[in-house]
């Protein structure tokens, strides 16, 4: 229970079209991540699914039923916001119980549901505090707890981790993944961070300027990007784009991931000069400038020593090379 379908959904604010026709199916129990650069319409699309914005055209179906005119509270979904959006005047307990109280559930049911959610997120000792007395990470856990309490068909997350510091972000990410396994509910998760998308998603929807660029599992997108935008967006550090003609291929762009570019001191395909080296311990990133292709990134496992301005040679792994035409579309 909790399948979502969008049929040619569009949204305009005045004369600017923000969502330009999105068709999408999210299966029951799936963890689906919307990823794309800031301002591409991810939050707008999520708000349309939640019923907080009306779609200008198109249909939204939940479990096969059209819900365009159904109020947000009646759609049996829960949403976690980037800014936590806890009710400042209510205790943690009341924040979590409010939706059930509004739905007219008996006190005992509300009590049991909040206790259960609190146990899942270890919020027990915080139940009588006000949001102002919690840290950022605790607030976000309460916001997630508030969503769980409703046992919704569909969870919506709008960049829930972007206000947390790096360590907390990883911990909360793992917690969300665990919740998805435990609850087996459908989740839609919006982020501009491709690492979050890759680590959490069953399926990723890459959005650009209000349009779906590609839909697929993280590894499908990594191994089989449909165009230069997806190729550049998925994977970190970013894919290198080379001049295809210079490599003896059809004119256009040739994409190669930093981990598939070999670096040697003496001989290789592309002569270049080291311009910067980043040592991360586990891996080393070498940035080298080539006259033909511009700045290229090489990713090496372990520690390596390269001096700035040192001449080097780079060789792409031909089997891992992606060819794109002048439009940026993948050549098949």
């Amino acid at each position: 229970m909790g399948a979502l379908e969008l049929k040619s959904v569009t949204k305009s604010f005045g004369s600017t079209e923000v969502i330009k026709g999105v068709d999408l199916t999210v299966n029951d129990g799936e963890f689906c991540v919307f990823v794309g650069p800031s301002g591409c319409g991810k939050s707008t699309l999520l708000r349309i699914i939640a019923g907080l914005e009306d779609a200008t055209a198109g249909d939204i179906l939940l479990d096969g039923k059209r819900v365009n005119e159904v109020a947000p509270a009646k759609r049996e979904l829960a949403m976690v916001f980037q800014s936590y959006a806890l009710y400042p005047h209510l205790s943690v307990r009341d924040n979590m119980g409010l939706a059930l109280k509004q739905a007219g559930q008996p006190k005992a049911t509300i009590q049991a549901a909040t206790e259960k959610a609190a146990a899942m997120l270890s919020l027990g000792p915080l139940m009588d505090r006000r949001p102002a007395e919690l840290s950022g990470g605790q607030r976000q856990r309460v916001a997630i707890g508030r969503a769980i309490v409703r046992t919704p068909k569909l969870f919506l997350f709008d960049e829930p981790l972007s206000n947390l510091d790096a360590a907390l972000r990883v911990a909360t990410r793992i917690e969300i993944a665990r919740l998805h396994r435990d609850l087996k509910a459908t989740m839609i998760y919006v982020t501009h961070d491709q690492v979050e998308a890759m680590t959490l998603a069953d399926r990723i929807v890459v959005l650009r300027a209000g349009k779906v660029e590609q839909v697929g599992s993280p590894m499908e997108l990594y191994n089989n990007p449909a165009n230069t935008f997806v190729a550049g967006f998925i994977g970190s550090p970013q894919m290198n784009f080379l001049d295809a003609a210079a490599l003896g291929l059809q004119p256009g762009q040739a994409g190669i991931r930093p981990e598939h570019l070999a670096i040697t001191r003496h001989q290789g395909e592309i002569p270049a000069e080291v311009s910067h080296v980043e040592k991360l311990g586990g891996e080393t990133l070498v940035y080298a400038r080539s006259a033909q292709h511009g700045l290229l990134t090489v990713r090496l496992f372990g520690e390596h020593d390269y001096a700035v301005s040192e001449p080097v040679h780079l060789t792409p792994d031909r089997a891992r090379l992606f060819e794109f035409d002048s439009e940026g579309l993948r050549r098949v």
Partner: protein
Amino acid sequence: MSPGRSIAAHAALITWTLIALFPVFVIVINSFKSRKAIFADPLALPWPENFDLIGYQTVMKQGDFFLYFQNSLIVTCASLFFVLLFGAMAAFALSEYRFRGNTLMGLYLALGIMIPIRLGTVAILEIMVASGLVNTLTALILVYTAQGLPLAVFILAEFMKSVSDDLKNAGRIDGLSEYRIFFSLVLPLVRPAMATVAVFTMIPIWNDLWFPLILAPSEEVKTVTLGAQVFIGQFVTNWNAVLAALSLAIVPVLVLYLIFSRQLIRGITAGAVK
């Protein structure tokens, strides 16, 4: 801040406070003096030799001052209530909902800030006569509500735009009605703005002489400012009584101000913790 700058800032603020409070101070001290003492030395403090409560006695005896006070309080509090309620509701609608003519409506509602309501006095009087509201407190409350709304809508709409959309949306998903969202989520967060609007609205209403004189001059609906006018004659003015009445009139408005300013400070510190 360095001590030198701190001292300079305090000196400037204290000087300004003294200048601002001086007229009030003169009114209050002279209200406790005999008529002769007032004219002999207006700046002298009320010592036993010139101390005199004649002003207060006159005020208490002549006219029904307690009733005037009550009228002023009813008019001010009722107008304030309606200005804040309707102003906040209009501001919420303007800042929260997208509808055709939203900007135009906002400008129209703010127009009253620039056009003094007194320009419409004749028309207002005609309306009040036609509807039989002359010499009622209702007439004053209606006029003052209209007078206070433009600024209230303008200020509150700006503040409400800054209330987090996510919070309101969370309420909608949890099934709160728009009224609950307005009253229990948005209003508490704009409390400092409400207090500011309350102070700005309250003082001109309390001090107004114009509309009570025109719309409600009869004995049983007189306000304090109008009541105090009986002591100002064309040839003789009973200064003791005027000063005593004015001193008394400061008290209720001071109390209201203290209530609102506490809200104001509480709102500001609550924001700082968040």
